[in-house]
């Protein structure tokens, strides 16, 4: 039965997230934009305490109860949207399960999930991160992975360099977290040789070498990591050893892709939080100056501003529902690769368009740092880039609807 009734549990989560967004994020939004690499400990500690009180180890859904309807991915979409409405850079600093946890959840065994994720429920806030991109290749991953993993007795020895690791510094330096590193056990096998490995904070041979200076999302650290003879226990290879050690198995690759099925709609939800913040501020500033938006008119009777805003509302709402559908499919254990990529493509487009248009439409008021609009314009663009650029996600959608393999369409 098609329904758009918000479950009470999600309603409560939204109210809570809104309180956090308004009180813990918006007031410091500008500060952490202007002080790149300063760590927002107040927010982090607060979120850690709150999430612990709620019994979770972060925003990422963990073990789901067997009874009753499953809504945890949908709930995460709502929380993500609301916290990104507050401040997307700070949202990226939320402790607990991030992309690393998503990878552990997607590819790890039950034992590994317990071993690596339990730390999120401890006394101190802990981060995790995900290292796939390398200096020479991003979208071509994981086929182009050059970081190697060589077995030596009971250990794996990792060598290589990873870049663009969101919260890499927080995972490895500022907390006792971990990094999921995608490395190859057989470079000849291309993507079939790629496996996810967990490197824990404090492991010798794993070093954060650089923090990027970015256009936006400045509260969030984007790290480079060098692995130099980095030794990790054999059991830190995610997945059951029998399967993941088979040379021709594509399970490693599929693990990475399964991670994205879960995380792409999250990025979409985050993007739409920025877009909504922007649209609301745009309407508020217009209303203050006496501009009323009339709905229900044919286009020939609308002002340009009205048409722009109606278009933005259509884009925003339709994309949000598409994102929610992708998350609903996650909860329902239905295949969601198509909806996940669709929502990611469209949310990336929509947030970029809405933030750029808002700055344009408000003229000097849009361009000034007096408001957050110019910041959101900068924050927005990352959503069209990370978790697969708009182009990579278009490729995925195209392959699905055309029933093509990557060999037939690349």
């Amino acid at each position, binding site marked *: *039965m*098609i*329904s*758009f*009734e*918000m*479950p009470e549990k999600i309603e409560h989560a939204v109210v809570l997230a809104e309180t956090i967004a308004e009180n813990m994020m918006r007031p410091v939004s500008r500060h952490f934009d202007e002080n790149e690499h300063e760590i927002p400990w107040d927010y982090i500690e607060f979120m850690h305490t709150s999430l612990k009180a709620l019994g979770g180890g972060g925003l990422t859904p963990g073990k789901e109860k067997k009874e009753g*309807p499953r*809504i945890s991915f*949908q709930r995460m979409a709502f929380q993500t949207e609301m916290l990104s409405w507050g401040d997307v850079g700070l949202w990226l600093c939320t402790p607990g399960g991030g992309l690393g946890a998503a990878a552990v959840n997607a590819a790890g065994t039950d034992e590994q999930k317990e071993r690596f994720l339990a730390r999120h429920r401890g006394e101190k806030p802990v981060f995790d991160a995900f290292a796939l991109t390398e200096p020479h290749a991003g979208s071509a991953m994981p086929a182009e992975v050059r970081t190697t993993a060589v077995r030596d007795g009971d250990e794996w020895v990792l060598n290589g360099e990873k870049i663009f690791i969101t919260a890499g510094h927080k995972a490895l330096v500022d907390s006792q977290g971990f990094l999921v590193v995608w490395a190859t056990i057989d470079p000849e096998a291309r993507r079939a040789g790629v496996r996810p490995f967990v490197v824990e904070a404090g492991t010798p041979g794993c070093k954060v070498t650089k923090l990027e200076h970015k256009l936006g999302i400045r509260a969030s650290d984007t790290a480079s990591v060098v692995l130099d003879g980095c030794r990790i226990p054999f059991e830190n290879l995610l997945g059951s050893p029998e399967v993941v050690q088979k040379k021709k198995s594509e399970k490693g690759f599929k693990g990475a892709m399964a991670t994205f099925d879960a995380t792409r709609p999250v990025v979409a939800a985050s993007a739409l939080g920025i877009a909504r913040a922007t649209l609301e501020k745009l309407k508020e500033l217009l209303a203050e100056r006496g501009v009323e938006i009339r*709905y*229900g*008119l*044919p*286009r*020939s*009777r609308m002002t340009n501003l009205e048409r722009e805003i*109606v*278009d933005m*509302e*259509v*884009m925003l*709402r*339709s*994309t949000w*529902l*598409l994102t*929610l*559908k992708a998350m*609903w*499919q996650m909860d329902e254990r239905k295949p969601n690769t198509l*909806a996940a990529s*669709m929502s990611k*493509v*469209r949310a990336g487009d929509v947030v970029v368009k809405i933030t750029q248009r808002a700055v344009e439409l408000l003229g000097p008021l849009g361009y000034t740092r007096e408001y957050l609009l110019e910041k959101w314009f900068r924050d927005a663009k990352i959503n069209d880039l990370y978790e697969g650029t708009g*182009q990579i996600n*278009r*490729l995925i*959608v*195209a392959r699905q*609807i*055309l029933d*093509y393999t990557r060999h*037939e*369409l690349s």
Partner: protein
Amino acid sequence: MYSFEPTDEQRMLIDAVHRYAENDLKPAAREAEEENELPANLIEKGWELGVLQASIPEAYGGFGEHSTVTGVLAAEEMACGDLAASLAVMAPGAFVLPILFGGSEEQKTEWIPAVIEAEWKPYVAALIEPSFDFTPTEMNTSAKKGKQGYTLNGVKAYVPFADQAKAFLVFADLEGETQAFIVPADAEGIRVGEREKLLGIQALPTFRLELENVLVPENARLAGEDGAAVERSIANAQVATAAMALGLSRAALEYAIPYAKEREVWGTPIAQKQSIAFMLAEMAIEIEAIRMLVWEAAWKLDNSKEDAAKTAYLALSGASDMAMMVTDRAVQVLGGHGYIREHPVELWMRNGRGIPDFTGLAMV
């Protein structure tokens, strides 16, 4: 709970409508367009699927409860076959549903069974007006209250089957508010104009309708003396049109995909070129996103949500852009062949442009 899954019952209806759209409507669409005529048995066959009848309670001759969600699912599926024929099949809905939503008990008993029972009959709405800035909430057609009832004056456009209509539901302005009036086809002062010649949907016969001092009794006004708000009917017409835009756009995408996989350029199917593949991907994304918006608007109407009317308006706004974007691109994917009338995409492109203008032709 959120859910994006039709019920089993809705699924069965969708399947039945799908078979009709694929097996009956699609093969007949081109000839109907060129001949400016829909075969009567084609409309009848669509009518017998019972989409409208299933949304009318038994007390008025139907066999179910009204559901806009079910209506939009069926409308998308049917319009995937052919828009003109779908508008014909669903035209009586625009007469009957406003009566179901807002009519008096007496009006419901008198009019609904007459439309619903037995074969398809041309009871239609006269809502659209021939002005560039036509707005359903601000009608130029006027109704004036007199001693013996209401006097209607004005000109309506895009009135389907007006030449053979049994009765019209005329939307007119009464003291600044849009109201609906049931007007028999033989009422004095009604003049059916020449058949309209349109950019698309040429299989559907539509007409201008002139009303000159047409006098109707007091009980012709929807809900009688106090009248009835028509917002729900207008919103319903908007989502019905938006749903048909989904079907139309899907047809265009589903035609472009196999063509692009077949057609080669320098030895490679054009679908394997990113410039074409990305266009197709964007078309699919657009359709899926707008579909969600249409579903939500329909659901809000069914559940009487406060912002249902606004959502319906936004859904049609989005669907209008989607229809033009997707049908235009389908022509582009076919290249020069898309421009040739041997392929249906040029017809769909012409139909797509009309989506914002078709509100009021059909309701679901």
